[in-house]
């Protein structure tokens, strides 16, 4: 009768809803599966089987919702990273020394599991520590990895796993070389070089043109001095609605601003300095006295108006700023 | 030198003032004053050791351990009382305060009377458990006094206890005649917690157990409070401030009739009890008359040739050689003696910042030690790490005063002019040579440049002609 257990185990290994099997068998079975295709795609049944105690292996299970109709952007962004991680882990650990099974449970396959776990959000990464064996953890409860700040890279997850799997092999993440990218970049590079060589005589005057450089530098200065970097770093909204359904272009508070706001301010600075430039350079070169005085009045007026408007806006930002110019008192 | 003088003065003061190092005012709390006759020998013994006794009963109004916030007594003996409560002046809180104020307490129980609740909660705070309903009797069917308790088996006979561990001095039964036995009559056994402040003096024999005499004897096995070695008959607790507390399970152990009683084991010959000497030592230890350590002085200095050897400087430099010396004395009954570390034990010095960088044995320094004090010293090289370090001696042993001495010094980095000069380092010679070469080359070039006549001038002159 010594063929019976083998037969039974073979039966079980076929992965129909299996009776209670020893943790060893379960690990081997899932490991063979993951060797075939990793991460193992789970269903309700074998999720329960995989996470059932006692277990002497670790199970890292990603509960995700890839289907488009759930609209889980983060899930879809993270999935390739997860696949990459599991692939490189299994490739690096064919023998299964780390005794880690990486698996994925999609919401469409494991609705009940999500319900039972009371998960509102996806994706969630659970790490089920072993309950028996040398690395047995105190509690069978899974450790949860939260995707607090955006999609994580495979390396980050790898670091997290390695932290929780001490003194076990941690196969490093191997990113496949992106041949397409390389070829593309090389082609582009050579293309640009040739284009540059060909177009050099035409481009040269543009590069050497002082006006171009003046424009570039002025524009960038205006951008920076109007708090463009603040927007970049803080990622402030472009505009935001005030309470009454309208749009408020100017954020309240001295330390805050909107994207639109900075552009308006930059434009005002631009007008002001251009008026100053015109008054300094252009106007004296107008030969006709009438035209000149008209220009003077026009630019001077523009300058004055714009400055008073700027002051009024600054009063909005900084309550109690005492100074103002007509007409925007 | 000054430290030595002050130490001698201290010694004199100690001799004239009291026999105990912490004072000689002893409060004896009895159920009623008449009972003191039973303990006359013991109390007389205490008086003869220079303690001034004042006998009180728990009920008396005048009884109070504190007067104007100061200790009114230095030591307290509590004899068992019939009363369920000890009254307002002896609550667990007050007793703990008394210990906190360096007072010492000798507490005796007896199986005859239930322990008052105040004492039970006090013991609970010290992590000492008594049998459940505050009454328990320790019996032993093998080591009992066949003379007085032939059938109750509740007078235990024990040999004088040896040292608790091999590295601890035996101060309770040293020099006891081998044949003498301690009689422990009608006592209560306590179970000690695992705290390191607790240590048992006298343990029950392996065959002893504690049970509740009011219940049927067959109920013993069901809820056995404790048995064998776990059953501590005389236990001590030394608080961190070295205030001492002793729990004696059997008050009768101190009674005259057991001091000079003849006891005989079954099959043994009648021998005299060891009780009187034992009581003397237990009370002596509790009242800080033996096993008291004192740090006389601590000195550390730079131990390098040519360096100033000023004592206890505030700051050292990394990799300095320093010497640390600590002087210890032990008080035994009447005088301060040089403290000698037990042979299996070691007195250690830690040099630590956040964690010890060095842990070194302190060796006896014969030169600096006298009959009254022993100087232990250790010399070592400071670690290669600057910071604020502590010389730390942390010597805490059962039955000995806790010693925790911490001297803070700063260890500074190398100053800019304490490194070896470049020309001393052989590895730097190539570079120095390189510098020299560059300088000479530059000078040569300059010279060449300045003293070579300009050629252009001549050519032109030729052309012009």
């Amino acid at each position, binding site marked *: 009768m010594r063929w019976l257990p083998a037969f039974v185990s073979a039966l079980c290994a076929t992965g129909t809803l299996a009776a209670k099997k020893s943790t060893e068998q379960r690990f081997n079975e899932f490991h063979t599966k993951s060797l075939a295709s990793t991460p193992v795609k789970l269903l309700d049944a074998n999720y329960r089987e995989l996470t059932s105690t006692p277990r002497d292996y670790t199970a890292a299970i990603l509960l995700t919702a890839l289907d488009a109709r759930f609209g889980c952007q983060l899930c879809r962004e993270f999935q390739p990273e997860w696949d990459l991680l599991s692939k490189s882990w299994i490739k690096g650990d064919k023998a299964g020394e780390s005794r880690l099974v990486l698996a994925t449970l999609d919401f469409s396959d494991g609705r009940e599991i999500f319900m039972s776990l009371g998960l509102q959000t996806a994706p969630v990464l659970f790490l089920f520590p072993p309950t028996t064996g040398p690395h047995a953890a105190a509690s069978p409860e899974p450790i949860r990895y939260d995707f607090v700040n955006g999609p994580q890279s495979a390396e980050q997850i790898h670091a997290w796993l390695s932290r929780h799997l001490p003194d076990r092999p941690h196969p490093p993440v191997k990113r496949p070389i992106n041949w397409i990218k390389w070829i593309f970049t090389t082609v582009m590079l050579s293309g640009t070089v040739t284009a540059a060589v060909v177009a050099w005589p035409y481009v040269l005057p543009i590069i050497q043109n002082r006006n171009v450089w003046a424009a570039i530098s002025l524009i960038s*200065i205006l951008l*920076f001095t109007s708090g463009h*970097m603040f927007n970049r770093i803080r990622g402030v909204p472009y505009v935001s609605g005030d309470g009454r359904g309208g749009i408020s272009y100017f954020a309240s508070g001295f330390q805050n601003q909107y994207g639109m706001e900075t552009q308006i301010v930059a434009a005002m600075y631009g007008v002001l300095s251009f008026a100053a430039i015109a008054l300094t350079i252009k106007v004296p070169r107008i030969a006709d006295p009438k035209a000149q*005085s008209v220009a003077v009045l026009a630019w001077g007026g523009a300058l004055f108006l714009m400055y008073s408007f700027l002051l009024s806006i600054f009063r909005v930002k*900084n309550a109690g700023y005492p100074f103002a110019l007509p007409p925007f008192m | 030198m000054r430290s030595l003088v002050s130490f001698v003065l201290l010694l004199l003061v100690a001799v004239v003032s009291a026999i105990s190092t912490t004072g000689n005012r002893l409060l004896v709390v009895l159920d009623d004053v008449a009972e003191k006759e039973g303990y006359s020998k013991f109390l007389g013994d205490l008086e003869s050791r220079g303690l001034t006794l004042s006998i009180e009963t728990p009920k008396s109004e005048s009884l109070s351990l504190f007067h104007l916030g100061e200790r009114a007594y230095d030591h307290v003996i509590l004899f068992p009382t019939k009363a369920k409560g000890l009254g307002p002046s002896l609550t667990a809180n007050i007793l703990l305060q008394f210990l906190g104020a360096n007072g010492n307490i000798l507490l005796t129980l007896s199986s005859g009377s239930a322990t008052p609740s105040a004492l039970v909660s006090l013991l609970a705070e010290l992590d000492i458990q008594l049998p459940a309903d505050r009454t328990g009797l320790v019996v032993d069917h093998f080591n009992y006094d066949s003379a007085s308790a032939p059938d109750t088996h509740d007078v235990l006979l024990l040999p004088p206890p040896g040292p608790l561990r091999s590295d601890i001095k035996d101060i309770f039964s040293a020099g006891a005649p081998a044949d003498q036995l301690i009689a422990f009559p009608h006592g209560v056994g306590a179970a000690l917690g695992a705290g390191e402040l607790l240590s048992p003096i006298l343990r029950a024999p392996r065959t002893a157990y504690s049970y509740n005499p009011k219940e049927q004897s067959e109920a013993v096995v069901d809820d056995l409070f404790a048995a064998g070695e776990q059953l501590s008959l005389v236990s001590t607790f030394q608080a961190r401030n070295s205030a001492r507390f002793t729990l004696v399970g059997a008050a009768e152990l101190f009674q005259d009739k057991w001091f000079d009683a003849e006891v005989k084991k079954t099959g043994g010959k009648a021998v005299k009890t060891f009780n009187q000497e034992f009581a003397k030592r237990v009370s002596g230890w509790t009242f800080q008359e033996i096993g008291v350590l004192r740090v006389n002085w601590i000195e550390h200095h730079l131990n390098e040739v040519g360096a100033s050897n000023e004592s206890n400087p505030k700051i050292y430099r990394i990799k300095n050689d320093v010497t640390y010396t600590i002087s210890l004395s032990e008080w035994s009954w009447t005088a301060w003696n040089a403290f000698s570390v037990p042979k299996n034990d070691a007195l250690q010095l830690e040099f630590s910042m956040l964690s010890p960088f060095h842990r070194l044995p302190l060796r006896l320094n014969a030169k600096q030690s006298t009959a009254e004090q022993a100087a232990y010293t250790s010399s070592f090289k400071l670690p290669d790490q600057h910071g604020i370090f502590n010389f730390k001696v942390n010597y805490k042993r059962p039955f000995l005063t806790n010693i925790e001495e911490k001297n803070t010094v700063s260890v500074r980095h190398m100053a800019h002019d304490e490194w070896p000069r470049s020309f001393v380092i052989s590895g730097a010679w190539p570079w120095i040579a390189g510098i020299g070469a560059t300088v000479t080359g530059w000078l040569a070039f300059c010279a060449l440049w300045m003293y070579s006549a300009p050629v252009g001038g001549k050519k032109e002159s030729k052309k012009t002609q």
Partner: protein
Amino acid sequence: MSADTLQVLASAGKGESTRTILRFIILSLIAGAAIASRLFSVIRKCPLSAGSQLLSWQSRPSRRGQLSGLLRLSAFWAALLTAASFQVSRALFTNVGSPSLSQSCARAERQSRMVADNPLVDPWFNFRATKYLVANGFYKFWDWFDDRTWHPLGRVTGGTLYPGLMVTSGAIYHALRALTIPVDIRNICVLLAPAFSGLTAFAAYLLTNEMTPSPSAGLLAAIFMGIAPGYISRSVAGSYDNEAIAIFLLVFTFFLWIRALKQGSMLWGVLCALFYGYMVASWGGYAFITCLLPLHAFVLICMGRYSTRLYVAYTTWYALGTLASMQIPFVGFLPVKTSEHMPALGIFGFLQLLAFLDYVRSAIPSRQFQTFLWLFAGGTFGLGLAALVVATSAGFIAPWSGRFYSLWDTGYAKIHIPIIASVSEHQPTAWPAFFFDLNMLIWLFPAGVYLCFQNLADEHVFIVVYALFGSYFAGVMVRLMLTLTPVVCVAAAISASSLLDTYLNVKSPNAEEHPADDNTDGKKSGKTGLKSTSKPVVGIYGWLSKGTVAGAMTVYLLLFVMHCTWVTSNAYSSPSVVLASRMPDGSQHIIDDYREAYQWLRQNTKEDAKIMSWWDYGYQIGGMADRPTLVDNNTWNNTHIATVGKAMSSREEVSYPIMRQHEVDYVLVVFGGLLGYSGDDINKFLWMVRIAEGIWPDEVKEREFFTPRGEYRVDGEATETMKNSLMYKMSYYNYNSLFPPGQAQDRVRQSRLPEVGPSLSTIEEAFTSENWIIRIYKVKDLDNFGRDHASAAAFDRGLKKKKAAKKRGPRQLRVD
């Protein structure tokens, strides 16, 4: 007024010598004005006896008298000169108008307001260091091991600070002593920054004069530099900080560089190198120069403007300057090992190569050979770049230091170095801050840069480059507004002066002759120049246009002066240690909790009691309370700070061993809930958590301090981790005893606190200041009877201990 007097006055302004003298007087006046405008804070704060911004300057009526006297004097002179100069000549008009008014306006009544967000505390350390220097001499200072900070690590202070500031004031102190002028070192420290601001104005004058022939530009630049709030913010009396002298050194080094570059003179190059060395000794911001000068050189090379002048100036500066900078122990070998110094080195090598090629080209006239050579040059440059990259990746060269790198990759600090991101000065700048700090200059600035393009000489290229990078850095970090201000002043001065020069020209052109010859000039100036300058200059006809523009300009300048005065009085001259607030009835209310608490520490704790607090308060505790601290504002050891963060953010049972290990005696927390003081520790708490999480990611988790809905709350909804954290307990301990039951209210977080407040067992309240802003707790010793603190506290509260048998099932047996 009549025409002849006008002639007379104008002629008075004509003579060259007179004008120079006048200009000198005006310059000194501007410097005086700049200094004086920074002393208001001192004078004003004397009644509060709070001193100026930081160092308290005890008020003696005599000194106050003389200060305000000096003030009125300068104001009077300035006003007088203005009155005269309005008629004299255009240069003078533009020069004196503003400073005089700055004085007269500045004397207006002021009010101060809470400056909560940036506790400027470095001066406390600098002052302490200076005292040490003066007391123990230079070599002791050089080898100073400070064992009262960073307990128990200590700090090798002599080797980890920029000694320039302390040495400067020490030198001044000894010089005055040598002149038998007995002066307290503290007064020197308080007045150093204003004094140097005067020099800065002068340096700005020199730098601008290098840029433009117009005589008035320099003086205008000096005025702007003197009163621009962006610079006043760091140079008011008592802001005894590195920047106080560093900005002067920055501007002056730039002036010397330009001078050396224009003349190609080695002498000026040497001077530049020397001042660069001084700068390195004074401020970590020297890296700005180290990168800007090579960049300028590189741009010039790319513009094909390589010249021997450039070669001489740059090589002199680099060789000597690098040697000088390496003399500072804190800098040491960084100039040859770290990336931020590599551009300078690379350009140095590249210049050698170019010089060589230049020589070869002059020797060998073959065309192909030249092209080959140029390719060769480019190739070497590329190779050098590649080598740099390789060396960096291989680790021979240290990568960018985090603080510096975070300027380029702005997201970097937030992820990797929270300790840097947590500093309020390192936040990006919103546009109101720009306008607040340099009001009209902000739009004169681009105009000036544009004018620099008119005739693009080497120095103008420098201005353009400086302007671009300065504005970028200032946009990324509030603090670097300081490095932007000089170039803004210079550029704005250029544009303003040329504007005024144009419109204050007394003689008008007559309309006849111009139409004839303009087209001829049109051909002459063309291609290379700016399009706008293709036509010839005619001049301004008619008084109307002149009058309008001049008048408008005057209005703007006056507005600017008033703005500066207002900003200075409001924002930059109220001490951050003493908070002044307004009562409903308008009277001023002084909140002096900090000094109260520090005084308490000084008087009620042991000399060597270790105080644990968040690092923001380290210098203050060291300076005012004179007690050892665990961490302070010199954040050199991130792990140690993280340890404090962990102790603050974990449960008592976890924190207590940490505090015991570090021998902490007292814990100090800042709590603004009662007063609505927003700069308190609960608001900084997340940074503590983050920094601790960086080191112990498994023990401290930021997420656990947020409610499931991702909010940061302190009321009943707060998470258990939050409620059990030591910081929370210390902040709200006994707080609800101030309110009727259930009414406890946190006025900063605007939230109602739970009914029962937290309870403490391992530490006990020692002190709470008047407005509860500062709370100090004493760390308990181990329990005398070997119990854990919780049960001991329970017993003291009267609860009897449970029976041991019930407490833990089977009793563990004694083994000994």
